[in-house]
């Protein structure tokens, strides 16, 4: 029990200490957006013929005529009251846009991470158990391939092979095909919502849409996960406690899984947290290739349109997710490794 309470205490402390960083991110993005070239007021005026007055009016409406510190204060006040501003491109509140799009990104990223872990850990373990063998070299080759092919290339290749040539994958556009009616909104995660509604046909449709983009993303992160698994596995297989387990005649499977692998997973957990955060932000290419209605493509569109509010909202969202992910990893680590609670 005390173990859990120290873990909770540490997690709370870690959360509190990340708040200043979040605030810093807020200020930084605000300033960054103000110094970027391009005047949103001009962009959103009715057309090239818009007069000076009209632009001036839009500017006033957006508060751009006020001094920067005052703009910042107003911005912070808005965020405090949960108002992230309104997107000028979609006309919706940014909060609502992010809320509707975040589940799509999260579902894709979670699935990709799951696929990556399920592939990378066995590969890494196999490579470590047969160090220097053909398997080891094969794993190294796969990892190199995964890293050096950009996601948009591998995504297009997968579409070409499985949609165009083989025809097994569905049309790579969006989360469900147009013939499937979306499930009643519960979590926003289609796989969960379909399952809740008991619509297994729809579940299958959503899952088949998810497979290609998820694999595309997974391919990219298999390499770091497999390499760290291999390295950690080699270290724990060579450790004294694995030798002890062998000297006591424990079955090989128990030695490898309970003694070596469980210890080796600790560094993998840390890397998985980092990989997850990176994936969430960097999956804009995959979202674009597969027309996936996620937050990253939303932010990119907004950025290209000099639409401040969504970009700021996105960056803030990513920073918060990073904090949450780190916190989760921290808690999991504390549970998995009893030594952490002792400083």
């Amino acid at each position, binding site marked *: 029990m005390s173990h859990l309470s120290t873990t909770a205490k540490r997690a709370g402390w870690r959360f509190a200490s990340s708040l200043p960083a979040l605030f810093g991110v807020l200020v930084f993005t605000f300033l960054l957006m103000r110094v970027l070239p391009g005047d949103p007021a001009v962009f959103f005026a009715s057309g090239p013929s818009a007069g000076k007055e009209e632009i001036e009016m839009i500017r006033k409406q957006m508060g751009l005529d006020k001094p920067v510190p005052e703009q910042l204060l107003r911005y912070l006040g808005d965020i405090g009251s949960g108002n992230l501003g309104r997107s000028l491109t979609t006309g919706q509140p940014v909060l609502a846009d992010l809320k509707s799009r975040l589940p799509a990104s999260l579902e894709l990223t979670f699935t990709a991470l799951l696929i990556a872990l399920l592939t990378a850990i066995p590969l890494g373990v196999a490579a470590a158990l047969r160090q220097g063998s053909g398997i080891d070299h094969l794993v190294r080759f796969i990892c190199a391939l995964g890293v050096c092919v950009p996601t948009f290339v591998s995504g297009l290749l997968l579409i070409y092979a499985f949609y165009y040539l083989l025809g097994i994958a569905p049309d790579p556009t969006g989360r469900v095909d147009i013939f499937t009616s979306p499930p009643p909104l519960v979590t926003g995660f289609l796989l969960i919502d379909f399952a809740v509604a008991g619509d297994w046909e729809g579940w299958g449709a959503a899952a088949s849409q998810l497979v290609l983009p998820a694999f595309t993303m997974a391919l990219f992160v298999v390499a770091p996960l497999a390499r760290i698994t291999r390295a950690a596995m080699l270290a724990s297989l060579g*450790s*004294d*406690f694995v*030798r*002890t*387990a*062998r*000297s*006591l*005649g*424990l*079955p*090989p499977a*128990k030695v490898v899984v*309970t*003694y070596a692998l*469980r*210890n080796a997973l*600790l560094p993998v957990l840390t890397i998985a947290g980092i990989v997850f955060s990176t994936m969430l932000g960097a999956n804009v290419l995959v979202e674009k290739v597969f027309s996936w209605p996620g937050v990253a493509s939303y932010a990119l569109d907004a950025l290209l349109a000099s639409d401040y509010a969504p970009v700021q909202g996105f960056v803030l969202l990513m920073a918060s997710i990073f904090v949450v992910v780190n916190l989760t990893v921290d808690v999991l680590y504390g549970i*998995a*490794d*009893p*030594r952490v609670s*002792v400083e």
Partner: protein
Amino acid sequence: MTMAEGEPLLAIEDLHVTFSTRRGLVEAVRGVSFSVAAGETLGVVGESGSGKSVTAFAVTRLLDASGRISGGRIRFGGEDITKASSKQLQRLHGAAISMIFQNPRGALNPIRTVGQQIADAIMAHEPISAGEGRARALDLLKAVLIRDPDKRLDAYPHELSGGMCQRVMIAMAIACAPKLLIADEPTTGLDVTTQKTVMDLLARITAERGMAMILITHDLGLASRYCQRVCVMEQGQVVEEAQPLSLFSAPQHAYTRRLVAASPTATSTIADLAPDAGDGASRHCERSEAIQGTSSEPVWIASSAAPPRNDEERRAKPMPGTPLLLEVQNLVKRYDRGVVAVNDVSFSIKAGESLGLVGESGCGKSTISRLVCRLIDASEGEILFDGQAIGTLPARDFHRSPLRKDIQIVFQDPTDSLNPRFNAFDCIAHPLRRLLSMKDGAALTARVSECAERAGLPSELLERFPHQLSGGQKARVGIARAIACRPRLLILDEPTAALDVSVQAVILQLLDRLRREDDLALLFVSHDLNVVRMMCERTVVMQNGAIVEQGESLALFAAPQTDYARTLLEAVLHLGGPTAR
């Protein structure tokens, strides 16, 4: 098992073990033969690199992937197990032969409770439920005399002391009642009192359960006390085998003789440690050290050629009225969460005097050495050096003090205390450059060569990097570096703990000579009481951060006044002492 009448439990015949390394094949064990009868305890002693551990790992077939048995036979219970399959071996491991390792904490899985690990060991050979496994684990913890066994069952290894971890390891090793227990340096790194209790426990358990034991150790005292027969190994071969009493009172082989001589005993003096030094044996003594071969005739021989044998005469006692060099008053070091590492400690060292600081691990002796060396700041108390208060200057800034060069330290680990990117020359020159602002040139080179020579480091080794030097040579670099600035106080924090006895003997002689030549004061921190008795005029005994007893070494060791000092002294094993069984 078909075991003929009178056949030994384990018989090793002409065993060869070869390792494939980058420099080609290395034969670590070269034709070793010995046998162990059921219920017998056999000691295998030797220094690092003698092949004693490799022999043990060959018997249990737990060698690294690069090592393999290249010849000979291992018979266990009448069966040839030299070529046993991994399936057969898995049945033997734990149930018939089990091992206990050095570094007990590392030998246990850090993220599994000790109860689970003991249950794992039982369930590997017996089909029992998890609940039964837990019950049996509890019984075993009681058998190894752990305090509060119920609580320890759910403890993780990091929550236990080293001694307790070793008890858990013993519990696992005896869980399935094996016939043979191989203990590989089971008490190295444990305190003397813990060493005694762990060894007594092992002796009792093996006697009660009729188990045979192979005790592998570098400590002749340990082997002589607990073994019925002892094999001495050198460079992959058994050079002598006998009963401990005759072996240590009348060693036959030259190597055994040297080993026996180098082992500190209750009465030996520094000069006794390598009595035949100078007549050619010294080169032999350094053989395992010198990578390059015979080039390095140690320098120390010259000055210790005719050492005074009389104990009183040898101890260069400071004259009465010698001023105090170091005075420590009411020193306290507190860490966070109320841990008090050093609690109200006062002592003093006169110029040229040597003070020993002994105690078990965690008693605060290393903390004191760092406090006095001004590497960390004290919470309370005064440190006076040559009459000046040096405790007030923050440790961070002490390197700027002119007294920095007067207080130097030699660390315990000769490897980790050298910068791996500096060669021996730069290591020794570093304090000269930093503290004396010496520029590169003839003067610096001469000074470094002089220090190296005084520390017995051949000048051709100065170009080498730490990883190219042996343990003893690295210790010499550390000493040369410490004396480079001609300090007045040298702090030695377990300077020989990581070294073999024969190397330790040479290093101790070197330190003793340097001290007398330079009128150097020593603060000698050690857990080895015999070494402290030989090296120091006065001794301070510490327990739980406080001084328990202090006084003249000879008097203190002859008649300790406190119970704790007595316990410590009784735990020291002496060659030729009574055997446990």
